[in-house]
Each structure stands twice: as structure tokens, then as C-alpha cells.
């Protein structure tokens, strides 16, 4: 008799949500930890961009006349500016330090997404909807079945062609 009220609440969303709410708290704590790393790489990203900008601008200042006097000179300064900036920024984007930092930045962003997915999964499960992993399993199964059917169809076509000769 005493278990009946509990049984009644077990079909509603709150019980499932309450049982998993600890997971949400853990995810939120981890998101905060990730954000620290993310900000670190983001700061480095903008530092690399602004340093490159500063160096490129100095090079332009040395090459270009102080105040362009006519339309041709403006065009020439613009060309110098674009060439130097494109060269310096391409050199940066092509460097190991940029590649490393950018890779880490994207990686941290993906970790944040993963935590967000996990939180969403808790909510989805509380209303009896499939989680991302469960949907992925369905996609995988569909893919595998389609692949098998396609291969069989293709083999059949090849066989028919061979027999028709």
C-alpha cells in the first residue's frame, strides 16, 4: 500500500529527471572547467592574430609613402597592404603554433558541445525520448542495411549484364 504513491510518480517526467539530475550538475561543473581551457586557447588565438596584424602594419608603414598624393598612389598602397597582410597571415595560418592552438580550441569547443549533448540526453530521457546515442544506433543500423541491399543490387545488375552477353 505504501509503495503505491511512489509507483504513481514513476511514470511522470520528474522521477526520471530527479534520478538523473546529479548528472546535470556534474556536466555543469565540467563545462566550467572546459570554459577555462577554451578561454585560454581563444585568448592565444586572438593574440596570434593581433601580433601578426601589428607586424604586418609595420611592414606596410615602411614600404608605403606617408600620405598618398593621388589615386595611383592610393591604389599602390592598397596593393602593398593586401600583399603584405595576405603573406603574413598565410604564414601564421600555415605555422605549427597556429595549427596546434587552433586544433586545441576546436577540441575544447567540441568538449563543450559534448557536455551540452549529455545534459540534453538527461532531459530527453526524462520524457521518454531516445538519446543521441540511441538515435545514432538506429542510423548505424539503417546504414548497414542500406549498404547490404545496395551491394546485393549492384551484384545482381553485374550478374545480369554478364549473363546477357
Amino acid at each position: 500500500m505504501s509503495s503505491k504513491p511512489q509507483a504513481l510518480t514513476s511514470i511522470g517526467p520528474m522521477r526520471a529527471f530527479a534520478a538523473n539530475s546529479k548528472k546535470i550538475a556534474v556536466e555543469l561543473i565540467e563545462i566550467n572547467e572546459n570554459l577555462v581551457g577554451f578561454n585560454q586557447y581563444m585568448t592565444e588565438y586572438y593574440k596570434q592574430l593581433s601580433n601578426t596584424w601589428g607586424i604586418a602594419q609595420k611592414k606596410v608603414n615602411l614600404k608605403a609613402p606617408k600620405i598618398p598624393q593621388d589615386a595611383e598612389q592610393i591604389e599602390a598602397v592598397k596593393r602593398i597592404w593586401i600583399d603584405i597582410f595576405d603573406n603574413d597571415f598565410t604564414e601564421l595560418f600555415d605555422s605549427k603554433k597556429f595549427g596546434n592552438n587552433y586544433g586545441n580550441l576546436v577540441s575544447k569547443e567540441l568538449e563543450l558541445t559534448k557536455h551540452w549533448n549529455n545534459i540534453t540526453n538527461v532531459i530527453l530521457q526524462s520524457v521518454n525520448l531516445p538519446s543521441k546515442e540511441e538515435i545514432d544506433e538506429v542510423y548505424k543500423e539503417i546504414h548497414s542495411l542500406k549498404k547490404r541491399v545496395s551491394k546485393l543490387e549492384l551484384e545482381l545488375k553485374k550478374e545480369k549484364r554478364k549473363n546477357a552477353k
Partner: protein
Amino acid sequence: MLNESRIDPKIIEEVLKFSKNVIDAPKFVSAPDEINLEVTPHKVVQEIDKTRLLYYKPVIETKHKTPLLISYALINRFHILDIHPEKSWVRNLLEQGFEVYMLDWGTPTSMDKYLDFDDYVNGYLDSSIEFIKNKSSTEKISLQGYCTGATIATAYTALHPENVKNYIATAPVIDGWKDTTVISNLAKHMDADKMVDTIGNMPPEFMYYCFSVLKPFEQGIEKYIKFFKNIDDKKFVDNFLRVEKWLGDTPPIPGELFKQWIKDIYQENLLIQNKMYVADQLIDLKKIDMPMFTQVAVGDHLVSPECSMPLHYAVGSTDKTLKIYPTGHVGMIASSLSQKKVLPEMGKWLAERS
């Protein structure tokens, strides 16, 4: 004494004209929906999942027996090969008397995240070739691959050489370690497993970021200045908008395919070392023994010539030609140079072998 103004009146005139052009721009520019990128008449002859096999209507009587299938890249859409009647790769080949097919990979959705190299090579491409062989009653076809589409075509040609009479590799992505582009630097430092496990397919937004770091000032500023300066030149504006529309339409890349791509080509560089597997089949480039034509562009900042050229030396073909053009990745396929030099040279080579 008054200070004499030293500003060149031409500068003021140019600034005023430029401002007027910016204001007038909406009058001259069509909405993206109004621009049709599928220029040359064609029909869809086969559809599998989201892929479509296109057959282009001949413009003259077909002169060559062997049909040509183009395997376009996975980045952006195939429209660049038929972007404008005067710069259409497809139309030029039709005018040379070739029978042309194109494989449109379509736009994958989240559901397609498990599509891999095997699906593209032994599934979609093999099915298309089988279809063409049946329709044309030929045992072999000519295959052309462009950019990442050439990597898929290369894998196919190595695995099924019996189906390919001639192979044309245009800016193929082959030797990831030798690639000197910014794209390869980003790819080498990417955690592809984490990306695919977390978000499924490679999102188009990531590709847009990659485009934005390629010559950012020429492409991000100068290009638009030129556009507004030439706003009253109908031909220039039409061409510009077509390319812009094409640039803004890149589909996602299926997760599993992307993962294998980044790891096997850019990070571990397995393809050129004959160590890459598609499903359980080893890709041995020496098995490519048919006539082969490789096209690379010196100014290619998406796939550097150092990344493409090793294919020419790695294959088993004895009849092989390497052509290097003074242009860029897109210039090689959709420019006046491609119409005047690249296509006539390729057509001549192909005609002699078709």
C-alpha cells in the same frame, strides 16, 4: 596665408563614384535564388540515396565511343564545372564531341554520418559506372576526378582498373604530408575522431572558416572592392554572383568519410604509401595502369601541386602525362584559361584514347 589643398580631385571623384556604386548595387544585383547554376541541359538518369547521376544532352553528334564520368569534389557543389555558358567545363567537353556524365554527391544529412569511403568508392561511384557501361554498351569508361573527387576516383581506379579506360586526375588530393596549404595545416592538427563523435558530419560552417583563412585580405576585401567598382558591368556582376553563390553552398561531409579522409590522407598519409584501405581492400596505386592525365595548377592554394603530383609518379601507367598550368584551383576548371588551354589539351589527349 591659406593652406593649399593637396588632395587629388581624382581621389574625390573615385570615392564619390564608389559610394554611388554601393548605393546603386541592389538595382544591378540579382537575388541568389534568381541565379541558375545548372546551365547546360541535363537529365538525372540514376538516383541512389542522395546522389544523382547526371547525363548532359549532347550539343553536337558524339564523336568518341568512350563516355566520360566526372567525379566532382566533396566540397561545394558540382555547379562550378558548369557555372557559365562561356566558362563551362561540361559544355566545352560536349562541344568536343564527348558523352559526359557527372556524379552529384548531394547533400548528406545527420542520418548519413556513417557513410564512408567504401560507400563512395564501391557504392555510389561503382553503381554510376555500372549504369553508364550498361547504357553505352561499353566495357570501360573514361573517369575524371576533381580535387577530393579525384581522391575517390583514384581509389576506385586502383580497385577496379578493369572498368576505367582513361583516368584524368585534376588537382587530386593525394600526398597529405607534402601539401603546403593552410587547409593541410589545419587538417593535420585536427581531432577528427572527437569532431565526428560529437557532431556527426563535418559541418559546412567549418569549411567556410577554412575558406576564410585562404588569402583573407585578397578574398575578403579586394574581391568586394572590385565588385562594387564594376557594378555596372553586367557580365562581371553575373560572373561574380555565380561564383559567390557556388562558394556559399557547401554540403556537410559524412562523418565517417571525413574521419578517414583526415586521418588517412593528411595525418598518416597512407594513400601515397599504398597503405590505405577502403573497407578491407588495400589501395595499390601501381594497379592504375591505364592511360593517365594529371592536371595541376601552380597557384593552387587549396591543393598544392606538391600534394597532387606524386600520383603521376606512383601509378603503374606507362602512358601518362602531367600538365602544370599557371593558374589556381578554380581557375584551372572555370576560367578563360581553362577554355583556351586546359580543356583543349585534355580533350585532345582523351580523343586520341577514346
